[in-house]
């Protein structure tokens, strides 16, 4: 799936995550902000990559601001941003 436009999903509320996605230049760039980045940063990035892979996104810049969200919430917000960024909605 190709990211054709900037899109966002989620909120900055507690237990949620805010995700921005932009068209990339051929690879995946992930920028993660999280209060638990030191403890869980790797797991969160893996989850983000996993959702990008599931949706066959090979090129995108993605920024995730985690507000203490569970992994299933982060995955949902990333997927929503991808679907909104694919450009035909």
């Amino acid at each position, binding site marked *: 799936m190709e990211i054709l436009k900037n899109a966002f999903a989620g909120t900055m509320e507690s237990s949620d995550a805010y995700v921005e996605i932009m068209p990339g230049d051929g690879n995946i760039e992930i920028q993660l902000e999280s209060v638990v980045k030191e403890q869980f940063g790797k797991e969160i990035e893996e989850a983000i990559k996993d959702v990008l892979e599931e949706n066959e996104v090979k090129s995108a810049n993605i920024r995730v601001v985690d507000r203490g969200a569970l992994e*299933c919430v982060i995955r*949902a917000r990333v997927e929503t941003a991808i679907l909104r960024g694919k450009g035909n909605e």
Partner: protein
Amino acid sequence: MMRRSMLFLPGNNPNMLINASCLGADAVIFDLEDAVSPAEKDAARILVRNTMRYMDLGGCEVIVRINSVDTPYWKMDIDALLPHKPALILLPKTASKEDALIADNYMSEVEERLGLETGVTGLMPLIETAAGVENAYAIASASPRVKALFLGAEDLTADLQCKRTKEGREIEYARCRLVVAARAAGIDVYDTPFTDVNDDEGIWEDARLAKNLGFTGKASISPRHVEVINSVFSPTVSEIDYAYEVMEAIRRAKEQGKGAIALYGKMIDAPIVARAERTISMAQALGIGRGDN
């Protein structure tokens, strides 16, 4: 499955969804309809799907209120959520048997397409229009998938062009009509939420009224009301004791070859026995009352 209380949770609010199993309700209703703005329908659908896919919600039953069949969203809601086996789909604005069948047929189509077991998820039409109330029995008996009716008084009173009051005189007819229609069709029936979350006395009265009219349980929009609803819709210790006495009296009558028997001067007949059996079964599920029979 015992459903005394059903708690509405907004479908795009992670903080509420992830705590669904901690709020005390027998069932939660993940809401994709009124609680979600049109711009966030996609986000809520994915969030609810992920909550169902990845979260262990313990013994809390999950119901999903999808969008109504006159919107562009309802088929996407069913596509996304049916594989995760919600107990029921709550179908808003069901006004006719045909509305219920449209959803039922599409659920069957998705089950077949995805190789899912047929009929695992039931349908609970939300009756919230004057036409829906008038067609209640036809809706309740539309298909074996219809497991319960659900009264929605806010939209109904708007359709009736009357004011919604705490006393609820304006919805008396609808309440009675739905109970009769659902019971005639052999299914359950759930009462509308009491919407004043700060009126602690009002919720008691409203829940007692619903129980006395024959409702199976009651919905809530606030976790604050769940405990009261559970309490009102649970059998009391004296009701449980009486139910066991009824069953004992029936057992003795059979032993003695008697066709009819009285308890405290009142004839014990089939409806009283059926009620006693329901009471005991509910008491056992709740782990209350005596368990020696």
